[in-house]
């Protein structure tokens, strides 16, 4: 089923991808094309088939509760585009109404 422009805008917002002029048409067309191929999955009756999330059987891999040294504050912030006084800095987060 083809993707509408509204859906493109909604999905782009969920993914926090900015849209530039032409992007909406581009995604709508490209994703619709791929989905047209993917829609063949609907031909298969999978009612009684369990889903596979992980392909090899490994279970119960737990870690003992033992602390190990982490990074220094300087190393933690070394790759940050903006760091101030030991914090990562980000633009304002509008929250309270």
């Amino acid at each position, binding site marked *: 089923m083809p*993707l509408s422009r509204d*859906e*493109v805008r*909604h*999905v*782009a917002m*969920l*993914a*926090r*991808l*900015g*849209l*530039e002029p032409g992007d909406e048409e581009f*995604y709508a067309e*490209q*994703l619709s*094309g*791929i*989905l047209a*191929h*993917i*829609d*063949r*999955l*609907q031909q*298969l009756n*999978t009612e009684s*088939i*369990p*889903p*596979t*999330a*992980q*392909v*090899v059987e*490994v279970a119960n*891999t737990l*870690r003992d509760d033992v602390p190990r040294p982490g*990074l220094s504050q300087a*190393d*933690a912030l*070394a*790759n*940050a*585009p*903006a760091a101030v006084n030991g914090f*990562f800095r*980000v*633009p*304002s*987060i*509008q929250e309270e109404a």
Partner: protein
Amino acid sequence: MSDLTELTIKEAGRLLRLQSISAGELVAAHVERIERIDRRVRAFLRFTPELWEKQADEADARIRRGDTAPLVGIPMAVKDVLCVRGVETTAGSQILSGFRPPYTGTAVSRLFAAGAVMLGVTNCDEFAMGSSTENSGYHPTHNPWDLARVPGGSSGGSAAAVAAGEAMIALGTDTGGSIRQPAALTGVVGMKPTYGRVSRYGLIAFASSLDQIGPFARSVEDAAIVLEAMAGHDPLDATSSDRPNDVSRDLDAGVKGMRLGVPREYYDVEGIEPGVKAAVDKAVKSLSDAGAEIVDVTLPHTDYGLAAYYIIAPAECSSNLARFDGVKYGMSSGDAQNITEAYQRTRRKGFGTEVRRRVMLGTYALSSGYYDAYYLKAQKVRTLIKRDFDAAFENCDAIISATSPTVAFPLGSRTQNPLSMYLCDVLTLGGNLAGLPGISVPCGMSEGLPVGLQVLAPQWREGVALRVARAYEQASGVKAEVAPVG
């Protein structure tokens, strides 16, 4: 001494241990070759002279102490998705430009400990999404056999480096065929292990339930040596297995008495080139002559594999790539009014077209109202595909086919149509969906370009895949050769 760049691990190891050459000299020969040809091949994104100098010195010291471990002093290239402490690692993406990890991933650490010498970081499709290395956020890589053609992808830089004699071995990652397909297109050996065989710790994730790290080499034996050094349980990866590391067992046992399955859906796959088919036919004949029994098998859900893959992989990638937000590392788009706008700008600018396409697709497939129709459905089809392989392996020890339906294609020829690019992986992605080990070995040329033979084995039977590939290599006399690079 340009012939030093054409050696296998075995051959180089002999010279190193006899101290006919030093690790420093071996590295220097590769660096010289890189300087001569990489301008045209463009396999590398970055070089690591401080590492190769230190590691070559250490290797020479180990050799002088009588250390006979096979990887000591062996020059290696590393795909740009594997974190190495202090070395800029970008997953082929502008969004990570300048990122220097404060840690080294497990597979690379193990190879360093085994004595390998890192030459540099190789190019790849951005976040390993692609089949031609044209989606790199930096530049394309060229096929050493024909510079106007792609090397395959996503691990195209690593494949090209080994094919061009710029590195003796290289590491790649394979999510839908990203090691095997470029290995086939550049005429080298490339192996994807069983999911869980090699720790993914330090691998910048594309699709977590499909990704595996594996080797490129110029012989099956070399691939086995590198894989064995990386494999085994890692407490930092909960999905890594603690099964015995037996990948090299029975390497030289031959194929006499083995049953090798040829799936008809793979043999006659849509778009397979006659030259590829002919080379594979010849390879099958040669294995049969070596004593293998060739049987027909069927993988009935093959036609649905691509569709399932292009839901599961993008869905996981849409989540895995959410961390690239311009806050903790990498690119940030600068002054935005608020955090949402900052995210949108950074990610629109930092991600390339293919990555954005897949993030959109995956986000859509997981979103409310579509989860059952797409994501859950794809997971169920994944079960069917796995069952196909289980059933096929009841009738054979390993499955053989072409690795890629085509030889290397011209640069730019598939970039406009994503589906045509996705079809490159139609013979390889089933192995990822089912978690199987698979190897691609060179099986001759078509139109002057390399063709690869794929061997798939049941989970945890890397030994079987390597053994069949090795038997083919010996029976056919077809060897991975270093491309001349005109």
